[in-house]
């Protein structure tokens, strides 16, 4: 049995408050995610990647079809399926340590143990020294590392990551990507990672799923063995990169009339 199964999922939203029209964002998607996969969902913006992640997390429900987690229908969020959000999602009134400890709130553990787990998680993301600081003193990269530490503390079987580092600068993003890869290698969990960057996907994934532009459908999938070198200058990676880029649909903005520039 697959860890996660998406069965014929369609998701549609009203296009306006008049509710006289609905737009289909995900169009009859069926996917399976196995244990210990690192799956990257890529595609043009507006293709429903984030929507699919929200359905997997249980923040929203499908318009049709169903999402199964370990064979059970997903109806609400659960600490079994951790999420790192694109936006900053820390609680500003809690210290960094308390933010991480909050992730252990629903677990029946003695306070001392929660403290130890939270501190260990912060150490893993190199933030042990910032444990007592407030999030507003942290840089964007540090905030997202705290969000990762929350998941490390929670230790869910499934990690859902929605363009977690896309608002960070290139250097920081690469560093955090490598950190995530290490965590995945050590923890042996399943990660579903949304990105719009082919390079990021090639660096991380054992499987890349390419979505079409709206309404989102799966165009193609590629499997990359975890053992394969991710050096972007190897022939294999260059070929794969070209293959994916060529298959990638033009971005949604392409069908908009080009801006006229008058002198």
């Amino acid at each position, binding site marked *: 049995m697959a860890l996660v199964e998406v069965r014929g999922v369609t998701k549609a939203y009203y296009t306006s408050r008049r509710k006289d029209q609905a737009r289909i964002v995900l169009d009859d998607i069926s996917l399976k995610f196995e244990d210990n996969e690192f799956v990257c969902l890529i595609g043009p913006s507006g293709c429903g990647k984030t929507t699919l992640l929200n359905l997997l997390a249980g923040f929203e429900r499908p318009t049709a079809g169903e999402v199964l987690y370990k064979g059970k229908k997903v109806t609400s969020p659960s600490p079994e399926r*951790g999420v790192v959000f694109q936006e900053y999602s820390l609680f*500003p009134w809690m210290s960094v340590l308390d933010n991480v400890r909050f992730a252990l*709130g*629903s677990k029946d553990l003695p306070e001392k143990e929660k403290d130890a787990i939270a501190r260990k998680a912060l150490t893993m993301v190199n933030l042990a020294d910032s444990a007592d600081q407030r*999030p*507003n003193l942290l840089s964007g990269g540090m905030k997202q590392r705290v969000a990762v530490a929350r998941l490390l503390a929670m230790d869910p079987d499934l990690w859902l990551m929605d363009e977690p580092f896309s608002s960070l600068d290139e250097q920081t993003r690469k560093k955090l990507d490598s950190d995530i890869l290490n965590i995945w290698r050590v923890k042996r969990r399943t990660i579903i990672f949304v990105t719009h960057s082919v390079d990021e996907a090639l660096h991380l994934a054992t499987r890349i799923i390419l979505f079409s532009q709206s309404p989102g459908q799966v165009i193609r999938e590629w499997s990359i063995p975890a053992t394969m070198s991710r050096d972007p200058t190897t022939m294999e990676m260059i070929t794969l990169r070209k293959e994916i880029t060529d298959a990638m649909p033009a971005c949604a903005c392409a069908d908009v009339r080009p801006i006229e520039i008058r002198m």
Partner: protein
Amino acid sequence: MLFNGDDDARIAKHLGSRKGQDPVITIGSDRPAALMRTALTFALGLFIVLLVWQLFAWAYNDVLDRAVLRFPAPLETFSMLWDFLFEGRTLLGYSIYDHIMASLGRWMVAFALATVVGLGMGAVLGYSTALFPIGIVPVSVFQMIPGLAWLPIALLLFGLGSNAAVFIIFAVSSVVITIGVAGGIRRVPPVVVRAARMMGADDLTLFRKVLLPYVTVDIINALRVGMGSAWRVLIAAEMVVGTGIGLGYAITMTKDLLNYVGSFACIVIICIIGLLLDKVLFAEIEKYARHRLGMEEGY
């Protein structure tokens, strides 16, 4: 403000004291100077009020010179205020302190009740997307009723006297607080709620540990606005429901007795108390809350 030339000028004076390549320059506390500036700015603003008042009184009394009654000038007013406060002069048989305490007492009772009801209703309406569209209708209807228009209802329920005033204050400020609190909760970003849910927070935890801290500043602001409405309508209510004691009652009685200077002295007290409550009490509470909640920007 686009540029803050004062800041640059102040820092520029200390650029010379830079130690080697150290990017941090020690400048020293700005606090005494800042306090002085605040005091001066406030004094200037106050001076404008007094100046306009004095000019108006002078024009009314001495230039127009058709008045039967004199328009109280600042000096007469403050002189009487001094007598009320420090010389033990009574007003309508009570000391000024009795009037102040009576008004403050009504305000506190009504405001406390309004806070309890407003927080409760605001929390329910803000939290429940199902109840909000229904509940906001009566709240909006009540909001449109001006303070003194509650008078007939207040008199029917409580008759003349203090309780009618308390009811009017309660009616006005509870609605203001409800709307502020509900609005605050509804503005909490979805990602915050989702993050808490994803980490396994149940309804109670979500409300207590996430929503409540998140909207504390909104709640304080709602209370602040409610406090202001309560204070203003309190005086008005006291003027019409015959409370027998209190600042509003004193204003209307001194007016009837043609003691306009006395009325003005009471108005000055009302302004001072209102300003103290808003600018000192609530401003400090808000500053403290922002700090505790880590919601300060910069620094």
